[in-house]
């Protein structure tokens, strides 16, 4: 009897419920924006290695002609203007960086994640965004394992920026590793708190302001290891110079 009473009371108690306090479409847009942002962070990080050589070249060239190479303001701009559904696309020099990364990416993945083949997602598989400058790469593991690899490279303007940690305020992830690398970078490892979504991310915070994130979300079993993600996140080819 109490079961029936409880069931009826629960349904009756919802009579006159207020309207939803949010618009589901807005939430989806926000989630998509957050997702793109995080992926972009990871991509930028992975790309930093690929772009490393080009970056060094550009920096040397910039230094030699007296032009400032790091003139960007210290302030962090919004990732997207109010009302926009995505951050502005591209930043100065991003086309060339994306082209270099696109050429280098197969070799990088083969080197650091050997024996695994990847498929690009439908739509944009590699994109550059501004505010802050970042590049995102998204790949699915071939063969239906349900794994999704993201590389995100973000430039935080010439300073090691732990405040730019994409997971710092994320309640869903747990910091499981944090160490100082010989080159002055910090390497952090995050896992999803909930077992519902097996996820692993390695984030390198470079002394030059580059944040390189390599992450994998798996359906059930993850085949990509922490060591492989670390190798990607720390590969100097997955970095890029500060855009001028």
């Amino acid at each position: 009897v109490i079961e029936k009473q409880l069931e009826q009371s629960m349904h009756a108690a919802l009579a006159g419920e207020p309207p939803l306090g949010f618009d589901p479409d807005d939430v989806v847009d926000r989630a998509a924006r957050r997702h793109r942002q995080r992926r972009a962070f990871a991509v930028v990080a992975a790309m930093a290695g690929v772009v490393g050589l080009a970056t060094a070249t550009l920096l040397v060239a910039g230094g030699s002609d007296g032009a400032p190479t790091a003139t960007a303001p210290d302030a962090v701009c919004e990732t997207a203007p109010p009302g926009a559904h995505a951050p502005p696309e591209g930043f100065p020099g991003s086309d060339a960086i994306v082209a270099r990364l696109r050429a280098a990416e197969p070799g990088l993945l083969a080197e650091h994640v050997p024996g695994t083949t990847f498929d690009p997602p439908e739509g944009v598989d590699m994109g550059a965004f501004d505010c802050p400058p970042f590049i995102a790469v998204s790949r699915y593991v071939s063969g239906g394992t349900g794994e999704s690899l993201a590389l995100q490279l973000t430039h935080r303007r010439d300073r090691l920026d732990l405040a730019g940690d994409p997971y710092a305020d994320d309640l869903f992830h747990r910091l499981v590793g944090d160490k100082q690398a010989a080159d002055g970078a910090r390497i952090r490892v995050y896992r999803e708190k909930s077992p519902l979504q097996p996820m692993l991310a390695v984030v390198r915070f470079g002394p030059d302001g580059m944040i390189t994130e390599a992450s994998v979300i798996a359906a059930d079993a993850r085949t990509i290891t922490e060591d492989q993600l670390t190798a990607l996140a720390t590969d100097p080819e997955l970095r890029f110079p500060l855009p001028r």
Partner: protein
Amino acid sequence: MRRSDENRFREFAREYAVPLRRSAFLLCGDWHTADDLVQTTLIKLHDAWPRISRRHQPVSYARKVLLRCWLDERRRPWRRAERRDGELPDDVTTGPAELHDAAGLRAELLQLLGVLPARQRAVLVLRYFEALSVGETAAALGCSEGTVKSQASRGLAVLRARLESTVRETS
């Protein structure tokens, strides 16, 4: 996320935002927190959507995530500091008579549910509001069917005792 996945997720969010909020309300007892919980749930679901939409029942998965979000929410220091004395954070105070009745019933129900430990409350909401089977409830909570049965039994016993006590006091 593929565009087709994104569209399916959008449809899912539109269709299930209200049902999920109802469950959230019965869990947390506050419409504003229920709104927050559902938004957090949808944002969390978004990242996993390509995977869960192909390999799981999205609603079941959403329910699990909502439960986790609610339990996380309860662990926040400011939540722990709140008094759990059955006081309602918000309710309908004006309007048609039936809304007053619903408000009274809601207050009574939330007071009753409020005395239960989180897991017992979750079991009762899943079993008697969502009408899930023992097995489905166990899967949603990540526990055994035996635990669901014992938690439901204890929860119902507490509610029964409370109701009897209320009846005695009013008669």
